[in-house]
């Protein structure tokens, strides 16, 4: 039986991992390769890196960084930020990443999803969505709107419509990141995660808000999410306490959630 995945997600600026609180006040933490190595040794299931300024500064992802991580880490990892076409994707995949995450660029040019899926397969293309609770309206029937550019620009797009469109264009996975919950450590947004799980047939990754063990139990039992992003729980200095991957897995396993066993 396929297990639920725990994913460590890092925001990277100039090769340093940072932790954003609702996308502002980034705190520098540590060199990306050494953080990646640490979470690999902790037996994390998967890693995601966002080069969070690549897009805004209109430059490409740091390929050297991707290569360095790939030489040290033997679990799958995804890279995002500043990817604008299939040529950029090819470079990142050749450097050793398994998947590419597209976010703002995909909103601006949805064809980047289909182009990537055609060239490299759907399994390589992760559609990352920043969702904000805005209340239901004619234009936003789900009550959740898509934002881009570090959650600063609102698009007028409905989150569920965008998720369905992403799937039909060929995305292989969807990350649902709650702007409201991100950095709060108060738990995932269960409602939107559940709604998106029910509306697409591809795996969904819950993101934003995990701070305690119960939050993971909640998202895996109350929604169809295949994976949960845990960032602060592992290493943020801002949180009440950090957890090891082992602690999280033993907790989940003990409560009947199927995870890859810690060995």
């Amino acid at each position, binding site marked *: *039986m*396929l*297990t*639920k*995945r725990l994913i460590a997600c890092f925001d990277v600026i100039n090769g340093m991992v940072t932790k954003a609180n609702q996308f502002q006040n980034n705190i520098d933490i540590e060199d990306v390769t050494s953080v990646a190595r640490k979470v*690999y040794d902790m*037996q994390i*299931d998967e890693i995601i890196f966002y080069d969070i300024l690549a897009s805004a500064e209109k430059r490409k992802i740091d390929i050297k960084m991707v290569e360095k991580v*790939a*030489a040290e880490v*033997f*679990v*799958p990892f995804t890279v995002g930020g500043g990817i604008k076409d299939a040529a950029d994707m090819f470079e990142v*995949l*050749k*450097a*050793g990443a*398994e998947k590419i995450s597209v976010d703002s660029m995909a909103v601006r040019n949805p064809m980047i999803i289909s182009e990537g899926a055609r060239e*490299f*397969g*759907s*399994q*390589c293309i992760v559609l990352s969505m920043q969702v904000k609770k805005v209340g239901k309206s004619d234009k936003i029937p789900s009550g959740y709107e898509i934002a881009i550019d570090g959650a600063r620009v609102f698009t007028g797009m409905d989150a569920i419509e965008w998720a369905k469109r992403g799937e039909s264009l060929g995305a*292989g*996975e969807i990350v649902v990141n709650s702007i409201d919950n991100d950095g709060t450590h108060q738990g995932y947004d269960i409602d939107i995660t559940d709604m998106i799980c029910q509306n697409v*047939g*591809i*795996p969904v990754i819950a993101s934003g808000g995990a701070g305690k063990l119960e939050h993971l139990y909640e998202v895996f039992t109350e929604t*169809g999410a*295949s*994976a949960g992003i845990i960032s602060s729980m592992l290493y943020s200095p801002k949180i009440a306490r950090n957890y090891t991957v082992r602690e999280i897995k033993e907790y989940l396993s003990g409560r009947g959630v199927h995870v*890859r*066993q810690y*060995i």
Partner: protein
Amino acid sequence: MIGIIDYKAGNSHSVLNACNKLNINCRLISKADEFSDITKIILPGVGSAKATMDSLKELDIIDILEECVLKRGIPFMGICVGLQILFEHSEEGDAKCLGWLKGKVVKFDKSKVRVPQIGWNKLDWKKDSVLTDNLDKENAYLYFVNSYHAVPENQEDILAVSFYGQEFTAMISHDNIYASQCHIEKSGPVGLRILNNFAAL
């Protein structure tokens, strides 16, 4: 010397990284005249069966692969799509494949499970193999990314199965031919152990 087939759609560098980590003697190869000193072959794979077959044809290395693996009996390891193309036919892109093993490749049932399958799944071993030496078989979780899976005609070819809405073929062994639907190069210490066991053959 292990030759890792390097083709456009593959993730040969990830396999190379894993082999380097294990201090395995290996190098990337992509031309027929690069096979002379090769004693084992790894065919990595991501993407579609059709694209992989097209790549191998374009590189013009199918004949030399068949000579090495089928005639000379060199140990071979196919990974992911590198497992799927060993069979006769794949539904993905209606592709005619190598046909080294009898059987076909079909898609997971979208009405039952999320497709692609992405994540760590547990293996259920069907026979003994040197590939599992020093491996805790009861706790062998490996990383899968696949929408399609092989259905071998000969049950004896199946080394391990896994479960995703249905039982499916996870690993193959047939004489000198080994193959893994899971990405052993990205499955942490368990995957590296299997890769190392293959290298030690």
